[in-house]
């Protein structure tokens, strides 16, 4: 809550409060509902203090920090390759995407560039982790709205992507595959054909989800017109990713401000937006995004160049003094690392800008006046990962 001091704003707030009181005779004392830290809809340990009037939400305030692991401080005592293993755990559903902006920031400071093949594979794995992440969102959102089957289908079909990520990197969830100056290894034999198959499966999964969930009348009734975030509110709260695009803002870091080292300009794809800004729009945009990501992967797989996957970098990495901020369009939104180096083995300071922290900040604004079931729709469609909020 921001403190309001000037008399005009206070008067306006009082007028609004009085306006909300419909019938003083029947007004009852509200109920404070503590959703979380252990609540199924907060997938993790987010706590939401909801003040309720009956089932209507008067105010909802997210409390974060139950899973704070002190990553920004930890980075100050870890070498750069060690940090790479650490930041895998921020957004644990799309881990590879966490590594890339940090590595790119370090590369920017060291003034090295990964060879083209490494850039291609990086982009492919980046988009694969997006597919893995958002396909699970589709199922999980269905689960939160009571459609159990969608969740299981999502877990089933996400396996196709995870298998590909595992066979390339060795880790299903935490690849730790990106290196300053390139990648740890080249792709295994036959990986490209298998990836084509996996992406086809995921495209079929998107169609299935559209049939089962997104096209369903009950689903639409639960999401359309619920939790509307207008474009100016979305921008002022610093929303990013699909949450922002669902409010009609045509903004995508992959297209607008792609850092060197990722090759999104080599593929033909589209940024989807939706004018409504409601829960349905956010789901729909993510569904389309999964399809686009699968298409990007398929195109890049066909044009992948040959050559080495690692540039010449010293064995012991010392990053020259300087500052760099690199942000990429991660599955959850803009994720950036502000790296300050003093020329040591370890960074002097790293600021992690993760998408979910900002995305969830709009909750008090958007949840006001919603019903408890709508609160679940809003929470689900804002789509946060607890590790991404708390770091």
């Amino acid at each position, binding site marked *: 809550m921001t403190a309001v001091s000037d008399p005009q704003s206070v008067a306006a707030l009082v007028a609004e409060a009085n306006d909300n009181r419909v019938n003083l005779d029947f007004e009852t004392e509200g109920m404070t509902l503590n959703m979380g830290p252990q609540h199924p809809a907060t997938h993790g340990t987010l706590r939401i203090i909801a003040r309720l009037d009956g089932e209507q939400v008067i105010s909802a305030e997210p409390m974060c920090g139950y899973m704070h692991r002190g990553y920004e401080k930890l980075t100050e005592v870890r070498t750069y390759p060690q940090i790479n293993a650490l930041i895998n755990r921020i957004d644990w559903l799309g881990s590879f995407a966490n590594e890339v902006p940090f590595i790119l920031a370090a590369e920017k400071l060291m003034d090295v560039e990964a060879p083209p093949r490494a850039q291609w594979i990086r982009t492919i794995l980046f988009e694969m982790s997006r597919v893995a992440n958002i396909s699970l969102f589709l199922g999980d959102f269905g689960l*939160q709205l009571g459609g159990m*089957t969608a969740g299981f289908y999502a877990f089933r079909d996400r396996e196709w992507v995870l298998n590909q990520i595992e066979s390339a990197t060795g880790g299903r969830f935490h690849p730790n595959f990106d290196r300053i100056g390139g990648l740890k290894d080249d792709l295994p034999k036959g990986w490209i054909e298998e990836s084509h198959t996996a992406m086809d499966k995921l495209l079929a999964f998107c169609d299935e989800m559209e049939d089962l969930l997104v096209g369903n009348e009950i689903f639409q009734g639960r999401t359309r017109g619920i939790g509307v975030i207008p474009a100016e509110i979305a921008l002022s709260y610093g929303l990013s990713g699909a949450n922002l695009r669902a409010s009609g803002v045509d903004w995508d870091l992959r297209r607008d401000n792609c850092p060197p080292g990722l090759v999104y300009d080599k593929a033909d794809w589209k940024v989807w937006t939706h004018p409504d800004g409601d829960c349905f729009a956010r789901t729909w945009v993510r569904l389309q995004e999964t399809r686009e990501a699968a298409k990007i992967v398929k195109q890049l797989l066909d044009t992948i160049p040959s050559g080495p996957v690692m540039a010449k970098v010293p064995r012991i990495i010392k990053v020259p003094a300087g500052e760099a901020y690199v942000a990429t369009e991660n599955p959850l939104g803009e994720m950036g690392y502000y790296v300050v180096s003093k020329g040591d083995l370890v960074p002097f300071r790293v600021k992690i800008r993760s998408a979910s922290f900002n995305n969830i900040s709009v909750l008090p604004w958007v949840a006001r006046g919603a019903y408890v*079931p709508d609160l679940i729709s809003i929470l689900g469609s804002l789509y946060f990962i607890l590790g991404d909020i708390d770091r």
Partner: protein
Amino acid sequence: MTLLLASFAPPYWLSTLIKVIVISAVVPTTALILGMVFLFKIMSWMQSRLGPQEAGPRGTLQLLADGVKFLQKEDIAPNGADLWVFKVAPLVVLMSTLLLYVALPASMHLVVADLDVGVFFVLAIASLSVIGVLMAGWSSASKYSLMGALRAAGQLIAYELPMVLAVIGVVIQAGTMSLNGIVLAQNDGSIFGWGGIGFPYILTQFLGFFIFIAAVQAELTQPPFDMPVAESEIVSGYQVEYTGFRFLIFFLAEFATAFAFAAIAAVLFLGGWAVPWLPTESDWYYVLGPIVLFAKVMIVSFIIFWVRFTYPRFREDQLQSLAWKVLIPLALVNIVVTAVLKVVL
């Protein structure tokens, strides 16, 4: 054996004892069967899973194992709970389920009490479970429980009326409120003079069948109407504070009620325990009747559970508007048309 059963006329105390034993054996068995077949196996197959595999052949004894597990659990009550109400609430829910089975006919004579107003009795008794739910929610001293219980009570307003109105069409057509009478009317009827398969009322009361199934879905608090026990919203609602055998009783009651309502739907719309080409007076129905009814119950249950595993959840106010703006007008139209046709034809 059928003759033996037909000539079996025990004294009052013995028949009462037999009825009590049969009901208290049938209710958990039906719950087990539905839970095993639909909740564990068919749900798993629909969701591309295997389901239970280890306990018993193909995992068929999993629910028994779970039941034993529940019985071993400590009986915990929350600190602020109203203990007496808290402990009685599951029994009230179970009682309403047991009473449902009293009027269900498994054949002409295999029925605990062949009531003249069987339909009325069944529908009235089914709503009693909401009292138990309210007791559970209120006494649990938990906000989620309270919200769940109040949702269940609010839901009652939505589904009860369409359910009753949907059944009225059948009652008009059969001309009786006795469940056995309705079965006889269906089996003895004929379609345009052709009596080959009797006259199951689903052919004319398909609208009533649809409304009845939708209302049953709400009565059973199953998706898409599972707001009172929504896991992702209010964490299983009124059941949230229950553990061990008290939770088991809720579980038993839920699935036994599902079976009972599927049986009611089978009796009202699918011809109940009778099969075509076998006259209803036949003694074979002592053996055949329960089997036929069970088969029809499984068909109806499949529809109920198929919907349960597929659809997302409504919001409470959406259920109200669905019931009052769609189901009730449709049911009224159904009643009017049925009544007019009954008089004209």
